[in-house]
């Protein structure tokens, strides 16, 4: 199996794989747009406790979070045309990419809806009451007071969802989409240099997820600029030079006292 390991192939494969980067990013972007729209729509009935829709949105979130994305891909690819045929709609000619983006979108939507729900409920009730007290309407209170705070809470979780989505797109090759992983497989079988191809693939994913992570972190900082961040002010384990746990905890306790005083 395979030729002898040759590191030079990692570098020759790198630009070739990067050429299919746009397909991967297209899936991520498409799924994200679908996911955010679906996620908001699904979160609303549960936030406002709409009777029947609330239950439906619970089942939706449970299903998409409770089954593997790989199974969902197959399910939609093979199942959706069948179901739509009953409604006399023919989608058998639709490109595979359509099914892939739809599935990833619905999958992401489940996570987005949970994130939105958690973020909105974590905004203190008193905030809304205060907004009403100064005479804001329901919509005003939501858009001016609740939404900005909820967004700041949701962004770190959404960042995880986006990074997870990027890595999940590697499964789209199972339906024959020529994104990066599919390309890596065909390059590998073509040249018989499997390991080099997959190392190259891993490198590209690493670079993109690192860049995305930085970008989202900068965005999060911007949203939270009005709040004192304890983590930033005192990195507990990141840049600490002390060796003993005792000193570390003593210092941490002192720091917490200072934060509480200020």
């Amino acid at each position, binding site marked *: *199996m*395979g030729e*002898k*390991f040759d590191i030079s192939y990692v570098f020759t494969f790198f630009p070739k794989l990067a050429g299919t980067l746009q397909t991967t990013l297209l899936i991520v972007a498409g799924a994200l747009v679908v996911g955010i729209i679906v996620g908001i729509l699904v979160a609303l009935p549960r936030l406002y406790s709409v009777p029947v829709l609330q239950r439906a949105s619970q089942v939706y979130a*449970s*299903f998409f*979070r*409770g*089954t*593997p*994305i*790989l*199974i*969902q891909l*197959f*399910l939609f690819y*093979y*199942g959706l045309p*069948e*179901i739509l045929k*009953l409604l006399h709609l023919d989608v058998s000619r639709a490109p595979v990419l359509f099914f892939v983006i739809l599935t990833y979108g619905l999958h992401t939507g489940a996570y987005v809806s949970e994130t939105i729900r958690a973020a909105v409920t974590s905004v203190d009730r008193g905030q809304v009451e205060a907004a009403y007290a100064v005479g804001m309407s329901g919509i005003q209170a939501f858009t001016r007071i609740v939404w900005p705070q909820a967004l700041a809470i949701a962004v770190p979780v959404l960042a995880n969802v986006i990074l997870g989505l990027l*890595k*999940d*797109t*590697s*499964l789209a090759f199972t339906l024959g989409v020529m994104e990066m*992983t599919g390309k890596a497989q065909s390059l*590998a079988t073509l040249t018989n240099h*499997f*390991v080099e191809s*997959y*190392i190259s*693939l*891993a490198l590209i*994913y*690493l670079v993109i*997820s*690192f860049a995305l*992570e930085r970008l989202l972190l900068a965005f999060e900082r911007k949203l939270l600029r009005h709040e004192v961040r304890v983590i930033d002010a005192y990195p*507990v*384990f990141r840049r*600490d030079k002390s*060796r003993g*746990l*005792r000193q570390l*905890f*003593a210092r*941490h*306790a002192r720091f*917490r006292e200072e934060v509480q005083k200020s």
Partner: protein
Amino acid sequence: MKLDPSFIWTALIELLPAIPTTLLVTAVSVLCGFVIGTAVALIRMYKVPLLYPAAVAYVTVIRGTPMLTHLLIIYFGLPLIIDGISSLLGLGFRSSSIPMIDFAFIAFSITAGAYMSEVVRSGLLVVNRGQIEAAYSVGMSTPQALRRIVFPQAFAASIPNLANSVIGMLHASTLAFTVSVVEINAKAQIVASTNWKFFEAYLAAAVIFWGLTVLIERLAALLEKRINSYNRGGVA
């Protein structure tokens, strides 16, 4: 192709024998991942020289790349290394005698280790500093304080995260089909293509995974309630 609801049930029955393989892959990767994760978390918290940058790099690289690439690199790369060493030492061992599922075990454990290390780390950070200070003040040593005071509380606090990791690995075990391990997903593919009924077979697989996930969630909730029983009342 016509929709055949009765075949969903047939497929469900045919998929049942594949459940133990899925659970085995999940259990092995979670347990090995937990051991690796705890070691990595402790290395990162205590800043062990030399090992610390390696641990950080490990977590960053694994969390920054898809699990599929880990599996494929291990699957294609490990035999090269093993055969190289084996021929160098003149051993008669060939990598082809290793069962496929072992590659899945190794790759998934490496992946799980990186994610688990974050779970363990956040669990340890949750425990109040006063707890360990109190342990020192009654004369416990650091290992005693960790074992008797910190770990039990950290475990209780990280049950939701652990349950999420277990569910994540359960879903990720479907990837093992790429190295021809016959777990639920691979079995569904076989059932689907032999009967030419794809939708029904995957629906059955989805139902099984959904059931397993809900079961794990329920169990975690029960365990959390039970283990947190010391924590009722008081200010916290």
